[in-house]
């Protein structure tokens, strides 16, 4: 795959590995071996592991303590309610919500991405904040905008929207301009 925007320096070596073993990334391979139901996926040259929801926090802990991933860069959600097309990975049951976490290991200079499927009927997942305190605001944002509940988060409140807001604006069924724009003191139509 010709991809010169790849950020990893050891890409050539991995390309060769890729042809031999499906999980060419050793961190991903370790995750797949350690957790039941974890699936490796090569997403445009980036290692991605689909982790079952129940192993979410354990996988993050494994990355921190065993694999020396120093930072959880980001946690966000994706709503797949209205997707025309969607990447399907063998062995992963697609659900409406996906929780995506990007990890970076500074000492090893590599990245990995974990994705968990969260059904619309039970939008809860374990919080990563107790493991990586840096995603505190990110998990609050995901809760605010998608209504995903992070079990074990110390302060799960709305962050970007007002506290009395109803609904979760980044969900696909929360239509834009659902709330009409109003101006205080507007004299109204004459």
């Amino acid at each position, binding site marked *: 795959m*010709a991809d010169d*925007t790849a950020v990893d320096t050891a890409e050539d070596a991995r390309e060769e590995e890729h042809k031999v073993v499906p999980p060419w990334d050793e961190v991903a391979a370790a995750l797949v071996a350690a957790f039941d139901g974890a699936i490796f996926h090569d997403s*445009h040259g*980036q290692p991605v592991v689909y982790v079952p929801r129940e192993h979410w926090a354990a996988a993050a802990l494994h990355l921190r303590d065993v694999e020396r991933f120093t930072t959880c*860069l980001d946690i*966000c959600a994706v709503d797949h309610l209205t997707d025309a097309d969607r990447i399907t990975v063998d062995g992963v049951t697609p659900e409406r919500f996906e929780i995506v976490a990007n990890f970076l290991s500074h000492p090893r*200079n590599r990245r990995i991405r974990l994705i968990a499927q969260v059904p619309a009927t039970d939008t809860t997942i374990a919080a990563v904040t107790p493991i990586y305190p840096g995603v505190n605001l*990110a998990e609050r944002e995901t809760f605010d905008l998608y209504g995903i509940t992070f079990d074990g988060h110390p302060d799960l409140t709305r*962050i970007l929207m007002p506290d009395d807001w109803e609904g979760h604006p980044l969900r696909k069924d929360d239509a*834009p301009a659902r709330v009409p724009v109003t101006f205080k003191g507007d004299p109204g139509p004459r």
Partner: protein
Amino acid sequence: MADEIETIDVDEELPPPSDGEVDDEVDDGLVDAGDFDAYREDTAEYDRLAAQTDEGAQLLTQHSEIVVTGGPWPELEGESQTMIINMGPQHPSTHGVLRIMMELDGETVVRAKPVIGYLHTGMEKTAEQLTYVQGGTNVTRMDYASPIANEIVFAMAVERLLDVEVPERAQWMRMLLAELSRMASHLLFQATNGMDLGAVSMMLFGWREREETLRVLEKITGLRMNHNFVRPGGLAADLPDGWEDACLDLCDIVERGIGEYDELLTANPIWLERMVGVGVITTEEALALGASGPILRSTGFAWDLRKTQPYLAYDQVDFDVIYTENGDCFDRYRIRLHEIAESMKIVRQCVERMPSGDYRVQDKKVTPPPRARIDESMEALIHHFKLFTEGFRVPAGETYVAVESPRGEIGCYLVSDGTGKPARMHIRGPSFYNLQSMQPMIKDRMVADGVAIVSSVDPIMGEVDR
């Protein structure tokens, strides 16, 4: 009526008793009784005035005799109580609309919690309504102090999903623009940081050089800010005539400018007093809290994506990663000051070594036909029209791309569902995460240090709230 005017005149002409200003006619310089005598003719009026004056003095005495009742406040004795105050959202040092809830013990900050969302405009939702061509107009408004970094990260994410390789000249042009943008951003920091700490002339100096930088960006992209110049597949236009001279002149101006800042601030005792040892953060704290950019580098950890995970053509240019070891506000100031010089190094190398070639990929899927073709070919016109109304389709997939913005790692997580608009576009704003690193910095410091700390984190609220 006339009497009233007279009395007012009297009042004004009486010289203050202890004033050194002496009337020519009076030698002793004391209260000139003569003037009083002249008005003593009008006895009744004088008495009224004198009485009033006396009465006023007594009134003042009466005021001063107000007795403060009550003993010492029992709550303040023994175990100290904390108090919560808000800094912001309308405080000038909060760089926009950041509100910090600070729990204070006396004047010492026990805890601080940033409260955000005042600038939330739903840009990630907006991104789902815009085509990939229009997306740049959206992301460029997030970190408005360094818009090019946002545009580059978005364009790189789209290109990765499209599997499109950008020509070499486009990569160098992007690098040039990114470094100009970094210079503008860090110059803005020098201005606001100085202003926050009371060095108001720094505000003017910083703004002066920043404006020159924006002038060059305007010459290249057409706009001072929010350029929307970096597009998926390349750039909007080629470099204009005379860009080399504009960039070199700018480097000379800014070089002189940062020399002035250095002279004015770096050894200034007041500046050192406010900055050195204030807002200290360790490498472990910074990494755990997801801090990146100058905050991480100030702790002695030389991490810069331009070096560690090179993108564009950063592996072909010569520059240094600036880092310091104390992790305080002064170090973050010094890092940004020296990074301006490193960016100028890269700009000069870009001028010297800018490769020739195309500024955008000649892939008909993403690139509109050239203007000349539109005049002579109906197909080219249709192609152009469709590209700018419907946009192009991006194959289903997901990717995360990160680049080094002036504030740290800016990332774009992009999910495509195979249509012409992203299914999800998430920006990992460095300011959003850097704000959290304020907590260990501000703990056990004075309230006044909070201003220096917020300033040295340099958050851009457009990127925090998106």
